[in-house]
């Protein structure tokens, strides 16, 4: 091309020798100047290769702008223009343009503006772009290009979006009773921060916020980034080209998905985590499902009306099997939270709450499944009482989520639990009033569990996040009175998880001390965990002993009942004999 350029202009300026980088840069600049005149096609750089060198001309306007952006004095620019031959031929052809650019580079390097200067190796010319030039650089200031420029600079955008979004969302928020947790009105800011680490969600957020956010807010952002982008020359251009293409593909994806303008129906990661915990409290195996009655009891505590709950169930139970899997449960919970915060229930299940979407967006970690699988296998018989235990704890936790007067809920929960567990666990129920009174009673004798095989060390790692979550949950609960019941629920799961790891037994005393320091020292999980692990061994031994005693008692009871059954059988035989004896009498 250099030879052709040199030969094409005939006896004009000497042939140019351009390096690869220079060639690319110059051709792009030229194409931009040429393309900008015609209001150019969208992606600029690809066209550069298609521009036939000899045919296109760059209009004087953009070229002049470009030259001015090089921040050279006007005289120098005049000289350059003369030298490159544009004045002679009357237009900026590619050869003239390239020569001019080379001269600009020379001038910027401090060399005199002479033809001879362009023969040596020179750095690329630097152009300080003003805002207008920035627009020209990016072609027509369409939305696409605006965001294209922003993709590398999302950090600054994030703040502007967050600001505008906060304003929008605060206007939308009507509900006076805001739950302390991440309720839908507060989820957009969370959403801005949290999922912005995911590439897909990042772009999705930028496309969505594009529409409401005023475009002017973005333009000032373009300006300060202009100079830095101008400095890197053609690199951002090409980068933007690939970005444009990928972005347009993603835009297509997001156009289908950007029909999710409904922020309240999107579950943030924090919310998701919370829902998963609640699910685990009802059903330890995250890959299994919650039965209808269990879910009904749980959701009834939200104090929504039955028709509304019925409708929410209808929306969330996609396969209509009367049970909730984890994504269905999350959807239902999210709808309940939304409804409590004043959002009207949708006509149909929003696309972001569909089970397959939720499963794809938030794949559950495998190791937790494994842990809970081994868990659930080892606890078949004791599932029921513990479920009720956990439901109670869940209800206690829910008092923070469902923005209802806490006193009413505790009263109702107590009654509900009392009626439900009258036969099963009188012990636990009697402990709840003690809990509510603000004391920290010794932990109830949980139904003793046979020690399963050693589970992975991973469970300890999980405990730590759960311990950390527990303090955050307690922090969120406003009434201080609830801190005690809150402290107890985290300690229970901690103990449960630690037990499977230990083979030795321990007294019931250490669990008392464990639950005591546990809520206090939740901030220092590591030493506490190790202490607990040693104490839990004794606890297990005690539990085994108690189990054996209970077995003995039940065996005795069994034998007594068998005896009674035999007696009843004998009575029945006797009566039947009598009946047969009497029958011939009646027939006659």
């Amino acid at each position: 091309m250099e030879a052709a350029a040199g030969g094409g202009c005939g006896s004009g300026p000497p042939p140019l020798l351009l390096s690869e980088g220079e060639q690319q840069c110059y051709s792009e600049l030229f194409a931009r100047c040429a393309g900008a005149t015609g209001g150019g096609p969208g992606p600029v750089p690809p066209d550069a290769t298609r521009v036939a060198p000899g045919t296109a001309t760059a209009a004087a306007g953009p070229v002049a702008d470009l030259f001015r952006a090089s921040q050279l004095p006007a005289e120098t620019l005049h000289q350059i223009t003369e030298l490159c031959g544009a004045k002679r031929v009357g237009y900026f052809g590619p050869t003239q343009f390239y020569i001019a650019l080379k001269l600009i580079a020379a001038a910027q390097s401090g060399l005199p503006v002479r033809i001879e200067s362009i023969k040596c190796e020179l750095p690329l010319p630097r152009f300080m772009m003003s805002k207008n030039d920035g627009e020209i650089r990016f072609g027509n200031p369409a939305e696409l290009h605006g965001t294209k420029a922003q993709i590398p600079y999302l950090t600054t955008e994030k703040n502007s979006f967050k600001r505008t979004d906060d304003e929008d969302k605060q206007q939308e928020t009507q509900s006076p009773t805001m739950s302390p947790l991440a309720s839908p009105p507060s989820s957009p800011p969370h959403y801005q921060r949290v999922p912005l680490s995911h590439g897909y969600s990042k772009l999705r957020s930028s496309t969505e916020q594009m529409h409401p956010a005023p475009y002017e807010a973005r333009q000032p952002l373009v300006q300060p980034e202009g100079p830095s982008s101008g400095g890197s020359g053609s690199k951002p251009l090409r980068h933007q080209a690939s970005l444009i293409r990928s972005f347009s593909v993603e835009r297509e994806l997001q156009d289908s998905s950007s029909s999710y303008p409904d922020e309240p129906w999107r579950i943030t990661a924090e919310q998701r985590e919370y829902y998963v915990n609640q699910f685990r409290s009802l059903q330890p195996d995250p890959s299994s499902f919650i039965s209808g009655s269990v879910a009904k009891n749980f959701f009834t505590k939200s104090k929504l009306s039955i028709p509304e709950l019925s409708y929410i169930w209808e929306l969330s139970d996609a396969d209509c099997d009367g049970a909730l899997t984890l994504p269905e449960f999350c959807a239902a919970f999210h709808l309940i939270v939304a409804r409590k915060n004043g959002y009207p229930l949708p006509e149909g299940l929003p696309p972001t709450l569909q089970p397959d979407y939720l499963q794809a967006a938030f794949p559950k970690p495998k190791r937790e499944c494994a842990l809970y699988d081994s868990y659930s296998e080892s606890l078949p018989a004791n599932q029921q009482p513990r479920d009720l235990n956990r439901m109670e704890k869940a209800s206690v936790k829910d008092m923070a989520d469902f923005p209802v007067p806490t006193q009413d809920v505790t009263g109702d929960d107590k009654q509900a639990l009392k009626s439900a567990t009258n036969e099963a666990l009188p012990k636990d129920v009697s402990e709840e009033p003690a809990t509510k009174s603000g004391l920290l009673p010794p932990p109830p004798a949980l139904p003793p569990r046979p020690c399963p095989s050693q589970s992975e060390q991973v469970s300890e790692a999980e405990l730590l996040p759960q311990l950390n979550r527990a303090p955050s949950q307690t922090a969120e609960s406003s009434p201080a009175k609830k801190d005690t019941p809150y402290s107890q629920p985290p300690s229970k799961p901690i103990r449960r998880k630690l037990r499977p790891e230990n083979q030795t037994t321990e007294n019931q005393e250490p669990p008392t001390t464990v639950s005591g320091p546990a809520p206090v020292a939740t901030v220092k999980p590591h030493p506490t965990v190790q202490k607990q692990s040693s104490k839990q061994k004794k606890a297990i031994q005690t539990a085994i002993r108690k189990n054996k005693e209970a077995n003995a008692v039940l065996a005795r009871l069994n034998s007594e009942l068998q005896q009674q059954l035999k007696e009843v059988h004998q009575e029945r035989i006797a009566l039947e004999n009598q009946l047969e004896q009497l029958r011939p009498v009646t027939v006659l």
Partner: protein
Amino acid sequence: MAVCVAVIAKENYPLYIRSAPTENELKFHYMVHTSLDVVDEKISAMGKALVDQRELYLGLLYPTEDYKVYGYVTNSKVKFVMVVDSSNTALRDNEIRSMFRKLHNSYTDVMCNPFYNPGDRIQSRAFDNMVTSMMIQVC
């Protein structure tokens, strides 16, 4: 197709009744009510020996001048009654059967909802939508 669709509980009170709003609905309610006798008759006639083999679809219960009434009973004695316009001669038995099958499926979905107490009025929106689709189809 259907002009009126009704779901009657075992104790013969309506769980769900809806008619096309063109004419006075009371007439349809009356027709459904009288059809219950016919349903009981059919059940009792088949019931004793062939309880297991009793088909759920009862067929045409009785025709009137303008309408035909079809019936369907589930194993839990919940009855579905459908009133169809007589002028709609294109309706075949198979289509009526399929409509009843859809009704039955939607009804079981309603039952699966733990918040639904058997014996309550059916207020499920999904059920409403399904019935609407059946009623509008012909129109």
